C-alpha cells in the first residue's frame, strides 16, 4: 500500500501579518451510528444511557469587567466522550448567555473518537450586567442531545452600551451522512443562533431539498426547540435520481433578517465533485486547540474536507482571516486534489503581527472546484473565530486527543500551493516547498 505524505509550506512576508501554510492528507473515516440517549443534566456532567457524555470545566468562572471599554472573556473546556461505540458527529451550542455577550466553540462540531475536546470562549463586553448566569452547553447528534451546565459570574459595574449591537440570525445545516442510496432515510438537522452566541428557540426554519435536476423532492417548515435545534427526516424514493442533492434552510424570526444555509449530499454516483468541510479547528503550534492568542503568536487553522462525488482535480481550499473590523487580513489559497471517497486535510499557519489589533477575528474556510475568476464555484464554506488579547495567559486549554491528523494512508494528492497577501503595499515574498514520501 502506498503511503503518500505531502507537506507543503508557504510563507508570505507581509505587514502586519505573516502567513505560512502546511498541508497534508488524511484518510476518510466518517461513519455514523444512531443511538438513543436520555437528556438529563446533573451539575457539569450529563448522565446518559448510551451515546456520549458532555463535561464542562471549570464549573464556575468569575470574570471582572475590564477597564477602558475592553472586552473580558471566560474560557471553558468542553469534553464530549463517546460510549457504546458512538461515532456520530456532535454539534455544540450554548444557551443562557448574559446580555450582549457572545460565545463560540473551537471546534464547533466533531466526531468523538472517543473524545472530542473543544473550547468555549465567552466574550463579555463592559455593557454586560453583573450577575450570576447558568450556561447550558448542549451537544447534539442525529438522534441524541445532551447538555452540561456551568456557572458564569460577572462582577463589576456595567457601562452603558456605546454602540447599538446588530444581532443577526445564523443557521447551520447538516445531514447525518454525506452519501446515501435510493430508499435510504435522510436526516437533516441544524441550529439557529444569534451571531456567534445564543441559540434561538422558536425560530421558523423552512427546508427545501433539490435533486440534481433542480426538482424539489422534499420541503418542510418547522420551529426550533428550546436548544435552538431543528430536525427533519425524509425517505429517498426507490427511483431517486442519482447525483448531488442540495438542501436549503431559511431561518426566520420576527425582528431579524432571514438567515440561509445549504448542504449537499450524494445519492448513488454523482457526476460532480461533492465536497463537504467536515472538520475545522484552530490550534496553537503544538496542536492544542486554542481560541485566544496574543499578538506575535502563531494561529494554526486546520480543516478537513470529504469528497463523495467524482474526483475533485485541482480544486482550491481557501482560508480567509478577517480582523475585528472585518477587514480581510490574509487570503491563503491551496490547490488540492481530492479523489472520490477520500479526505484532504490542510493546516495553515497565520503568524499574528506584534501590532495585531485586539478583538475577535473571523476565519472563513471555503472549498471551490476552481478559482472563481476562472468560472469556478464554492462547494462548501464554514466560519470560525478566535480572539486576540493582550492577556492571553488566562486561557484554559483543553487536551487534544481527536483533533489534527497530518498524515494518512489515503492516496489523496495535494498538489501545489499559492498564497497572497492583502494587508499592505509593502513588498512581499512568497516561497513554497513541498516534499513527498512514498513507502
Amino acid at each position, binding site marked *: 500500500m502506498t503511503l503518500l505524505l505531502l507537506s507543503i509550506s508557504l510563507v508570505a512576508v507581509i*505587514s502586519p501579518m505573516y502567513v505560512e501554510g502546511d498541508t497534508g492528507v488524511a484518510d476518510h473515516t466518517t461513519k455514523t451510528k444512531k443511538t438513543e440517549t436520555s437528556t438529563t443534566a446533573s451539575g457539569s456532567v450529563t448522565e446518559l444511557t448510551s451515546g456520549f457524555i458532555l463535561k464542562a470545566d471549570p464549573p464556575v468562572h468569575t470574570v471582572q469587567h475590564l477597564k477602558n471599554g475592553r472586552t473580558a472573556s471566560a474560557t471553558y473546556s468542553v469534553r464530549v466522550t463517546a460510549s457504546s461505540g458512538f461515532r456520530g458527529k456532535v454539534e455544540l451550542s450554548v444557551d443562557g448567555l448574559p446580555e450582549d455577550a457572545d460565545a463560540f466553540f473551537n471546534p464547533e462540531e466533531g466526531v468523538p473518537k472517543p473524545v472530542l475536546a473543544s473550547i468555549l470562549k465567552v466574550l463579555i463586553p463592559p455593557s454586560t450586567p453583573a450577575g450570576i448566569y447558568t450556561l447550558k452547553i448542549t451537544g447534539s447528534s442525529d438522534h441524541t442531545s445532551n447538555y452540561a451546565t456551568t456557572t458564569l459570574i460577572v462582577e463589576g459595574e456595567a457601562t452603558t452600551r456605546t454602540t447599538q449591537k446588530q444581532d443577526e440570525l445564523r443557521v447551520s445545516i447538516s445531514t447525518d451522512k454525506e452519501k446515501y442510496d435510493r430508499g435510504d432515510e435522510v436526516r437533516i438537522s441544524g441550529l439557529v443562533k444569534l451571531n456567534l452566541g445564543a441559540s434561538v428557540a422558536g425560530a421558523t426554519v423552512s427546508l*427545501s431539498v*433539490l*435533486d*440534481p*435536476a*433542480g*426538482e424539489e423532492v422534499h420541503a418542510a417548515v418547522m420551529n426550533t426547540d428550546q436548544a435552538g435545534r431543528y430536525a427533519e427526516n425524509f425517505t429517498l424514493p426507490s427511483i431517486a*435520481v442519482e*447525483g*448531488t*442533492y*442540495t438542501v*436549503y434552510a431559511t431561518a426566520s424570526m420576527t425582528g431579524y433578517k*432571514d438567515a*440561509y444555509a*445549504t448542504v449537499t449530499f450524494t445519492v448513488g454516483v454523482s*457526476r460532480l465533485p461533492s465536497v463537504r468541510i467536515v472538520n475545522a479547528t484552530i490550534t496553537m503550534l503544538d496542536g492544542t486547540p486554542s481560541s485566544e492568542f496574543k499578538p506575535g503568536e502563531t494561529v494554526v487553522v486546520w480543516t478537513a474536507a470529504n469528497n463523495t462525488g467524482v474526483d475533485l482535480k485541482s480544486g482550491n481550499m*481557501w482560508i*480567509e482571516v478577517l480582523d475585528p*473590523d*472585518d*477587514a*480581510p487580513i490574509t*487570503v491563503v*489559497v491551496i490547490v488540492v486534489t481530492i479523489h472520490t471517497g477520500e479526505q484532504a486535510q490542510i493546516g495553515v499557519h497565520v503568524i499574528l503581527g506584534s501590532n495585531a489589533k485586539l478583538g475577535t477575528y473571523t476565519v*472563513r474556510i*471555503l472549498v*471551490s472546484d476552481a*478559482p*472563481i*475568476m476562472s*468560472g*469556478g*464555484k*464554492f462547494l462548501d*464554506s464554514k466560519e470560525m473565530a478566535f480572539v486576540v488579547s493582550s492577556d492571553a495567559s488566562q486561557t484554559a486549554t483543553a487536551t487534544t486527543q481527536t483533533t489534527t491528523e497530518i498524515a494518512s494512508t489515503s492516496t489523496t494528492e495535494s498538489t501545489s500551493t499559492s498564497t*497572497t*497577501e*492583502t*494587508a*499592505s*503595499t*509593502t513588498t512581499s515574498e512568497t516561497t513554497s516547498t513541498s516534499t513527498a514520501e512514498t513507502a
Partner: protein
Amino acid sequence: MARPFGDDRMRRSRLLLLFLVMTLIPFAVGRSDAAGQLHVTVSTDKQSYGPGELVAVNGQVLDDSLNGVPFASVSIQANDPSGNPVHVAQVLSSTDGSYKDQFRAPPNPTNGGYAVYVTASKPGYADASSQAACVITPEFSTSQVPFLMLLAAILTVLLAKKREQGSVPSRNSRRQEKEPSRT
C-alpha cells in the same frame, strides 16, 4: 384482399415503438441537469474607494426569462491589481434573486483596479459568471494631517537654526558663491 399476417404485426410493432418514444421523450427531457441558463449581474456601490473603506458588492441572479432566481449560490472573489485574492465569500440569493456582500478595502492598498468575480450556480441550471471593477487608492487620512504639519514646522525651525549657525548656506550666500565664476 387480406393483408399478410406479418405486415399487421410489423405495423403494430411500429405503433408500439412510436408510443414508447412519445411517452418517454418528456421524461428524458425533464431529467436534464441543465433546465436553463442562469444570468448574474455584479456591481460595487462606488467606483473608487479609500483605504479601509467598506466595498459593497451587489447583484442579481436571473433566469432566461429575466426572473429573479432565489437560493442560487453566489461565489465571490475579489482580486487586487496584481491578481492576488483579497476577499472570498459564498452567499445565497434572496427570494427576488438579489444578493449582497461586502468587504473592507485593505488599510494599505495596492493602488489600482480591483476586480470582483462572481459565479452563480443552482441545481438544474447552467452556471453563470460575471465581473465588476473598482479602484482603491492609497491616500493620506485626515488623522495624519496634524502630524505632517507638526513635522513640517519642526523641520522649518531646525533648518532656520542651522542657517543661523552657518552650517547650511542660505540661497543668497549660494548665489554669491556662484557669481564670481560667472565673471
